[in-house]
């Protein structure tokens, strides 16, 4: 169910994203103004942008809950490792979409996110080259991130969703559930929840439309990132810029190796150590986000 809701949220993101992109200008000189244009002059533009923002938040929550539930049920064990990996890949792509979406606003928060990405790209050498402004002189980094946000990343996302769905259909959701369970049996319930989510996102977008900061000023850090990135922000607070590179590698690396560590043995529960490590990771992730909300704002560049 949570997976289906995530999918519905993604569909909503695609629809609202396509509409917003008709008015967005990826030129660094005009990007910020074009977002203001959407918010103030496009009919329903402010609400549409709010829907996009809240749908992104809802999708990130639902995909996290979905993965936690799949982990709890051990639905990743052989032969469903690839289904899990496709899900982990999707989670990573959603983060990349959230990051590029933040940068596209071209406000202070977006500018700081971009500066962090550039700093990260310098630290990671050739791997980070695509995020470097020196990658090409023919177009701006903002324009390339826009292209990633609206074409490259959605294509990867749709490919992973296709693979994920195919494997679920071929292998079933879980060893404990019959493979014969038909999708159409779940459809009315799923659609019902999906419509409630649409209503919720619509109401949130109307009552709490997202704002936009002032145009970015370089070399200054005075904002905190979009909430899904607050756990990375907290790591940066304590370990400097390298935390921004290492924390995601640790979390996503751990998610990736779970099916390799937890090999199925008839009648045996999950190894206690894996459960303990997973719980620690879970608490660090959630705790990091909560702490990040209250943590003092800090300068990371040059740490």
């Amino acid at each position, binding site marked *: 169910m949570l997976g289906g809701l995530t999918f519905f949220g993604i569909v909503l993101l695609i629809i609202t994203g396509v509409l917003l992109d008709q008015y967005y*200008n990826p*030129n*660094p*000189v*005009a*990007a*910020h*103004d*074009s977002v*203001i*244009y959407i*918010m*103030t002059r496009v*009919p*329903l533009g*402010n*609400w549409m942008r709010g829907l996009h923002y809240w749908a992104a938040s809802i999708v990130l929550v639902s995909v996290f809950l979905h993965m936690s539930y799949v982990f709890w049920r051990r639905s990743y064990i052989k032969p469903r490792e690839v289904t899990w990996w496709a899900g982990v890949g999707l989670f990573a792509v959603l983060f990349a979409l959230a990051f590029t979406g933040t940068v596209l606003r*071209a*406000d*202070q*928060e*977006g*500018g700081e996110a*971009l*500066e962090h990405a*550039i700093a990260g790209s310098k630290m990671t050498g050739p791997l980070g080259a695509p995020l470097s*402004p020196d990658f090409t*002189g023919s*177009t*701006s*980094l*903002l324009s390339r991130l826009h292209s990633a946000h609206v074409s490259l990343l959605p294509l990867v996302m749709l490919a992973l969703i296709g693979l994920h769905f195919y494997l679920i259909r071929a292998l079933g959701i879980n060893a404990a559930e019959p493979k014969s369970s038909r999708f159409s049996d779940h459809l*009315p*319930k799923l*659609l*019902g*929840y*999906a*419509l*409630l*989510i*649409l*209503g919720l996102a*619509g*109401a949130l*977008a*109307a009552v709490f*439309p997202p*704002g*936009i*900061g*002032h*145009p*970015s*000023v*370089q070399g*200054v850090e*005075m*904002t905190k990132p979009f909430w899904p990135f607050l756990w990375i922000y907290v790591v940066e607070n304590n370990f400097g810029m390298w935390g921004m590179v290492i924390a995601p590698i640790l979390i996503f690396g751990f998610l990736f190796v779970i099916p390799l560590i937890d090999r199925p043995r008839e009648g045996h529960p999950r190894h206690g150590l894996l459960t303990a490590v997973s719980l620690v990771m879970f608490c660090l992730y959630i705790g990091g986000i909560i702490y990040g909300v209250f943590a003092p*704002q800090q300068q990371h560049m040059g740490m």
Partner: protein
Amino acid sequence: MRRIIFAAAALLLATAAPAYPHGGGVLRLASTHVPGGGTVVLTGEKLGKAADLALELRGTLDNYPVGRVRTDAGGRFTTNLTLPPHIPGGAYTLVAIAADGDVAARTDIDIGTASGGSGTIMPGMDGNDGIHTEPHISGPHATAEMMQLKRTTTTGEWAVIALVTLLSFAAGGWLLSRSRRA
């Protein structure tokens, strides 16, 4: 067969260039980078003969009328265009509007602050990489505050929002109660 005809017709319609009654007009600026309050020579050609045109700067946030011109018998004009001194810097489109309201010609112009420069290109870093600072403020002053924008929602927009939101809640609730009963 009918499907193929429809598809071909749709393709033809999609690729057909729209016809503009005032298409083909040309505006040329002596410089495309002009400070607010500055003057620039503007020439126009291939326009309507002996036609009155209104000149307007169209920005992302607002439009600014900047004068009127009259073309000669050859559809040309030359004028010294003076920009409003307090216009916010940024990228604008200068349009020449015919008497019937259609845009007869257009050109891009980058307007800087009155003190010179058209804003600073920010992170990313040099050249065209990065994000633009607010050009109409003197010097960069970063703030984490959100902008206070005048976001007005019309009654019609509220009606659409309420309709979509309430219908989603109602239909979702109905589907869930139905699936529970089944």
